[in-house]
C-alpha cells in the first residue's frame, strides 16, 4: 500500500499527459474530420480527390510512423520545414490521423441520410448550410455515435504511442518505475487507469446515445 502511494504521483502525472493529449486531439480532430467529410462530398472534384488522397495516406500508414515523421522529418520537408517540439508534434500527428478516421465515419453518416430530408428542407426554403446544420448533421451525429465512441476509446489507448517521442505519458511513466523497482505493480496501476478512462467514456457515450434515441424508442 505504501508502495502504491509512492508510485502514484508520477503515474498521475503521466495520466495527466495522456488525458491532455486525448482531449486536445479529440477537440481538434472532430471538427477537422467534419470539414474533411464535407470536403470529401463537395461538388469540386479537385477538393474531393485531395481529401481522398489525404485520408488514404493517414489510414494507410502506421500512426507511429506519422508521429516520427512529424517530429523528425518535417523539419527537412521543403516549404513546410518546421521543427515542432515533441508535444505539439504529437498533437499534430494525432489530430491529422484521427481526423481522417472521423471523416470517413461522418462521410458515411452524411451519405446515409435520405434524400427526402434534403428535399423536405429545401421545399421549406432552407439553404444548404441551414439544411446541414439543422437537419442533416443532428441526424448524422445520432447515427454515428457508436462508431465515434469506438474510435474515441481507441484514441485513449493510442496515446501511449507518444512514448516514441520520449513524452512522459502514463505508459512511459509506468515503464520507468517497472525498470527501476523490478515490480510489475506500476503496469497494473496503468492498466487500471486506462480501464477507468474507457469506463467513463463508455458511460458518457451510452448516456449520449440514450438521449439521442429518445424519439425512436
Amino acid at each position, binding site marked *: 500500500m505504501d508502495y502504491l502511494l509512492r508510485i502514484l504521483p508520477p503515474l498521475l502525472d503521466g495520466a495527466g499527459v495522456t488525458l491532455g493529449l486525448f482531449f486536445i486531439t479529440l477537440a481538434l480532430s472532430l471538427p477537422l474530420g467534419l470539414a474533411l467529410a464535407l470536403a470529401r462530398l463537395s461538388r469540386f472534384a479537385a477538393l474531393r480527390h485531395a481529401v481522398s488522397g489525404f485520408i488514404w495516406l493517414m489510414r494507410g500508414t502506421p500512426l507511429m510512423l506519422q508521429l516520427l515523421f512529424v517530429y523528425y522529418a518535417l523539419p527537412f520537408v521543403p516549404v513546410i520545414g518546421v521543427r515542432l517540439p515533441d508535444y505539439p508534434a504529437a498533437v499534430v500527428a494525432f489530430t491529422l490521423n484521427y481526423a481522417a478516421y472521423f471523416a470517413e465515419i461522418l462521410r458515411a453518416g452524411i451519405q446515409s441520410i435520405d434524400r427526402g430530408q434534403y428535399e423536405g428542407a429545401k421545399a421549406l*426554403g432552407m*439553404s444548404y448550410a441551414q439544411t446541414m446544420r439543422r437537419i442533416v448533421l443532428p441526424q448524422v451525429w445520432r447515427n454515428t455515435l457508436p462508431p465515434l465512441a469506438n474510435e474515441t476509446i481507441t484514441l485513449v489507448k493510442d496515446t501511449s504511442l507518444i512514448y516514441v517521442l520520449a513524452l512522459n505519458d502514463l505508459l512511459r511513466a509506468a515503464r520507468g518505475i517497472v525498470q527501476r523497482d523490478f515490480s510489475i505493480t506500476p503496469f497494473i496501476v496503468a492498466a487500471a487507469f486506462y480501464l477507468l478512462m474507457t469506463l467513463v467514456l463508455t458511460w458518457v457515450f451510452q448516456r449520449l446515445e440514450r438521449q439521442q434515441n429518445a*424519439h425512436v424508442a
Partner: protein
Amino acid sequence: MVRATGLHKHFGALHVLRGVSLTVARGEVVAILGPSGSGKSTLLRCLNHLETVQRGSIEIAGQKLASADATGASSYPSDSEVRRICQHTGMVFQHFNLFPHLTVLGNLIEAPMTVRKQSRADVVPLAEALLAKVGLADKRDAWPARLSGGQKQRVAIARALAMQPDILLFDEPTSALDPELTGEVLRTMRQLAEERMTMLVVTHEMAFAREVANRVVFMDQGQIVEEQPARDFFTQPRHERARAFLAHML
C-alpha cells in the same frame, strides 16, 4: 399564381417534359392525373426548383423562377433569389419527409425560425393553430416515428402551411398510405380547398380529383394531353388516352 410555359426537361437521354404549359389561378385546385412515368411529379418538382428545366419559363406569384431566352433555353436567378421565390410554394411529399430528430412542433417551427428568422414565441401559436386544424393538437410533443402514416402526412401539411405559402404542391400525398388512412389526409386537403387555398395535386385518387379539384390536367408521355373542368373530364374525356386511363382507374 403559377404560369409555366413551354417546359422541357431531360434526364440524360430521357425526355420527361416535352413542352408543358400550365397556368394555375389563385384559389384554384388543380389535379394532375396520368399514368406513372408521364412526367406529372417532375412537373410539380420543377415548380419549386427540386428539379430544373432546360427550356421554358416558370412564374410563381408573378416572379420569374425560370426565364427563357430568345431560343427558349431557361436560366435561373441566384440561389438566394430562387429560395425567396420558392417561399411562395409549399410541398407535401409522398413519403412525408418529416424530420425524425424533431418533435411534431419542432418540425413545424423549424423553417419559420431558421429561414424567416421569426421568434419562437411568434411561431408556436401559429404552429399550434395549424396542428389543431389538421386534428393533431394532442400530438404537439410526439416524435414523428410514433405517428401513423396518415398523421405524418397531416403533420407534413401543417409544416408546409407554417411557412404561409401561396400555393401548396402535393406529390402523390396518399400513395404511401394504407387505404384506411387516406381518408383523413384527403379530408384535410378538402378542408384546405374549401378555404380557397391554391393547390396543385398529383394524385391517383380519382374520387378526390372529381369532387375537390376545379380542373383536371391529364398528362401522358411528358405532355399535357387534356385539360378540362373536373366534372367534364370524368364524364366526357375528350382524348382517347384519357378515356383509356379512366377506364383503367375507375
